[in-house]
Structures are given as C-alpha cells and as structure tokens.
C-alpha cells in the first residue's frame, strides 16, 4: 500500500497545493495519509488542526474534520475538541514557529498534561510563509532574512523539550527517510497520550536559497545527511555528533491520560455531588 488511495483522503478540488516546488511539507502529508489508511482510522473520526504558516495549510487539503486556527494556539483548540469529543483522533499539525516560539507555552503544558493529541511538528528551521525570518530551530550560523550575518542563537532541541515537559510519546523523523517517518507517525497515531513527532522538513525557497541549497534535492540531502539513527547516535562521540541529530523513538510510555483522568476525577464525582 503506497499512495494508491491517497485521493480518497484529500480535497482534490484544492489541489495542486500552495507549497513551493519540492517543499517537504507535502511529503509529510503523504506519510500522514498513508498512516491513517494503514491503521484503518475512519477519516470522519479524525480532527486535524493547524496554526499559521506554511504547515498551517495542511488541514485545508485533508478531507476530514479540519480547523485552521491562530498562530501557536492550535493546541488550545485541539484540547477543547479532545475534551468535548474524546472519541476523535485529534491531530495537530504545527510548524516550528507555532510549536516552540509563539506556542511554546501551550506546547509544554500539553506535554505535561499528557492529553491524547498527536502533535506533528513540521520543522523546516525557518518562518517560510512570512519571509524567511529565523526561528527558534534555525541552526547556528545559518542565514535567514533576519540573520544576514548568520544566526547567533542556539536552536531548540524539540525532542528534549517534549521529553522534559512530560510527553508520553516522543519521536523524531525526517522527510527523507520515509520508512521511519511512516512508522513513527503510525505509532504516534496509535499511542494514547500526548504524542510528539518532530519531522525535519525543508524550505527550499526561504531557507535553501539563503544557504546555498536552492534546489529542493539539496535541501533534502541536507536533512538526510544530518539524520542519524538512534542506535548509531549512541555510539558516536560528541565531536562526531556536531551538526547532526538523532532520529527514532525517544519516549514511549503508558501514562494516565488527561481526558480520562478528568472524566474520572472531576466529571463523575461532580455528577454525584461528591466533593
């Protein structure tokens, strides 16, 4: 099963999508759809949300229950939907700016609560849609419209952030290694609890052009070359790890889920007047 049935899950009248030629966002959407099909999740029982930015366009192309929300706040809408309709599989698509800049606070608290939302973060290391400003994940020394001398900051490690904040499933994949990408998205969709999948993506237009990678394949190579399997990563020295990142599953734990706990400890007791 590859993309044979992909159009059953897409709003075909909205295609071709708005993303630039060779932008990896579409690769991640393909993986998400294949994963949904593989797990036989009814598309009418899925809610997909997004914030603002290029990744924010995703729900517009998916033939599911969709909501395009405000910048960085999609997790708050997702929380409301999951609380009201726990039977839905709630998928929140975010950009790096959404997830760890403007929405950073929402992100860490969703992790802490362990609410059953699947957060898929399209990390292209830049603000693509608004003109190529550097984001909290732009690697040090790389160029952005707001970093003409190179970025002097240290980027966030989203995996470590999610792990520290208490998410019960945390994985990183990338848009080149499709097998792993499909695999971790499937695992995240099957996991009960807050699930974070950081997908290392590309932005040939805003990041690539400023960093001598204007061809889409150069950008995807840039991602592929730095992505190291967790097993290999563990055998590498600090020196060898420089500029690279591990891919794989970092946290996969069963922990009490927020909506269930709330139902049990608040709703049921409130109904009985048990205070």
């Amino acid at each position: 099963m590859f993309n044979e049935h992909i159009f059953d899950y897409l709003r075909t009248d909205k295609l071709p999508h708005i993303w630039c030629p060779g932008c990896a966002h579409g690769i991640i959407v393909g993986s998400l759809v294949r994963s949904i099909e593989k797990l036989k999740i009814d598309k009418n029982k899925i809610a997909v949300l997004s914030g603002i930015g290029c990744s924010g366009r995703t729900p517009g192309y998916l033939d599911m229950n969709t909501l395009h929300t405000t910048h960085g706040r999609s997790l708050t809408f997702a929380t409301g939907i999951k609380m009201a309709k726990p039977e839905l599989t709630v998928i929140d698509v975010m950009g790096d700016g959404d997830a760890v800049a403007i929405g950073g606070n929402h992100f860490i608290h969703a992790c802490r609560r362990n609410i059953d939302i699947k957060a898929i973060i399209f990390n292209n290391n830049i603000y693509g849609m608004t003109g190529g400003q550097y984001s909290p994940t732009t690697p040090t020394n790389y160029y952005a419209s707001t970093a003409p001398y190179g970025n002097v900051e240290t980027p966030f490690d989203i995996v470590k952030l999610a792990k520290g904040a208490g998410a019960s499933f945390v994985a990183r994949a990338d848009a080149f290694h499709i097998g792993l990408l499909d695999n971790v998205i499937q695992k995240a969709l099957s996991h009960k609890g807050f699930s974070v999948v950081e997908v290392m993506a590309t932005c040939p237009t805003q990041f690539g052009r400023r960093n001598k990678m204007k061809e889409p394949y150069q950008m995807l190579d840039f991602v592929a070359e730095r992505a190291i399997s967790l097993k290999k990563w563990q055998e590498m020295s600090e020196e060898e790890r420089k500029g690279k990142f591990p891919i794989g599953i970092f946290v996969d734990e069963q922990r009490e889920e927020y909506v269930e706990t709330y139902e049990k400890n608040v709703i049921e007791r409130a109904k009985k007047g048990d205070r």
Partner: protein
Amino acid sequence: MKKRYTHKIFKNLCKGCSLCVHYCPKNVLEIGDDRKVIAARPDDCIGCHMCEMRCPDFAIQVHVCEEEEKEKVK
C-alpha cells in the same frame, strides 16, 4: 519473470521539482520539456515506490503492469 511497472503521472499536480528524478535508484524518470516528470525508462523500474512517497505533490504513482496482474489471477 521480472515484474514490470507503469507510472501513473498526474501532470496537473506535478511541479517539476525533480525530487523523484534525483532519488530514483534506477534513473527511470526525467523532467520533460513541459517541466513535468516523464517515465523515460520504465523498463528499468524496480518498483521501490520511492518516487511516489517522496513526491511532495502526490503526482506520481507506480503500479505493477496490468497484464501481469491478470497473469496472477489466472
């Protein structure tokens, strides 16, 4: 017998980005004069589906040749 494959290309979706061309392990694909992908050497295809899964525009699918599908049914 070696399996044969056909390439279903949705020209209206293809943006000519070349990702599929670049990563095809058998050099099957090319960008045509209209800046859209073409399967120039379909007989060399090994059916790995990497072009299909790395295409950001859902513009290419690889299918086993129909005659062979029919063979299987017989």
